[in-house]
């Protein structure tokens, strides 16, 4: 009898475990990001993040960790570290000036179909728990039409510390202060937000994910 119950529990676990995420927004990606499906940008230029916090390093954590998740979404990403040299040479390093207005020169100059802007408004660490709180906005703009193709904004708490008290969790907190964990936190944030981005040309669901539920334009969540 015991085994039977165990079997039933195990079997039901199997069914519920991989259920697709559902959101309360009721939006599909096709509805939330219609411009993305219309323009189908292939080449993305990551703009140096706009940092409105007093943590200078926050800009670099994000700048160095955006290419990877964006490539994983199926896009061709212009190498940020090389692009940086060009942007500096052209006095285009300050991204804020391109948030509105004509950005067609990035298409002519670098072959970018769209620019990805990020604006960081908070980057703070709780000393006790070691968790990092980020408030950030992501916006993708077309270099051809200037239209916004994708935009998400919100707060994400990145909790890397183990639960529970004692020496182990204190040690874990100490590790969180390491450099790798800050980049890891930025990367986790990028993955979290860009998960809602329609897949690009190199991903299996390119132009097939319009019906997928969208998490919507705002977020307030905890990621581990």
């Amino acid at each position: 009898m015991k085994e039977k119950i165990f079997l039933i529990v195990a079997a039901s676990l199997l069914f519920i475990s991989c259920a697709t995420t559902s959101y309360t927004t009721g939006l599909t990606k096709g509805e939330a990001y219609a411009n993305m499906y219309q323009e189908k940008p292939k080449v993305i230029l990551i703009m140096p993040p706009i940092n409105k916090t007093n943590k200078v390093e926050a800009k670099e954590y994000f700048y160095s960790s955006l290419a990877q998740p964006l490539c994983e979404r199926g896009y061709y990403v212009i190498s940020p570290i090389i692009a940086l040299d060009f942007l500096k040479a052209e006095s285009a390093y300050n991204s804020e000036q391109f948030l509105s207005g004509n950005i067609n020169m990035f298409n002519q100059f670098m072959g970018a179909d769209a620019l990805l802007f990020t604006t960081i408004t908070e980057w703070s660490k709780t000393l006790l728990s070691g968790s990092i709180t980020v408030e950030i906005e992501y916006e993708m703009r077309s270099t051809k039409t200037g239209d916004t193709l994708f935009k998400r904004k919100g707060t994400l708490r990145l909790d890397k510390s183990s639960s529970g008290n004692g020496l182990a969790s204190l040690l874990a907190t100490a590790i969180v202060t390491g450099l790798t964990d800050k980049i890891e936190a930025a990367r986790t944030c990028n993955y979290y937000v860009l998960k809602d981005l329609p897949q690009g040309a190199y991903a299996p669901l390119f132009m097939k994910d319009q019906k997928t539920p969208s998490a919507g334009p705002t977020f307030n969540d905890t990621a581990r």
Partner: protein
Amino acid sequence: MKKHKIGFLISTLLVLITLSSCATQTNLYSWANYSDDVYTYYKKQTPASLENLTKTYQNLLEHQRGTRGVTPPGTYVEYGYLLCLQGQKQEGMEMINKEKELYPESTTFVDRILSSLNK
């Protein structure tokens, strides 16, 4: 007794499948320590950080276990650019040109790099 054992075995198997099924993430590419190494190198250009980054590029070129089975965008071009800056211009240029072959949409950007290196 035997029946119980089989039931237990099946349940254990099911639990194992459950645990493994959602854990495997399908990535398009392998990345090794790319973002850490690239951050560290550009933050502080030391012989050690250069060596780490170089090793990561070589690793990305040689070992791709992602579903696409090809090098991720930017690897050839970054590695080639780095080689050129260190005086290995011919090898670097060849590397950069491979980016165009693999990702033709990078042509405008790659040609821009090549012309800046030829100045």
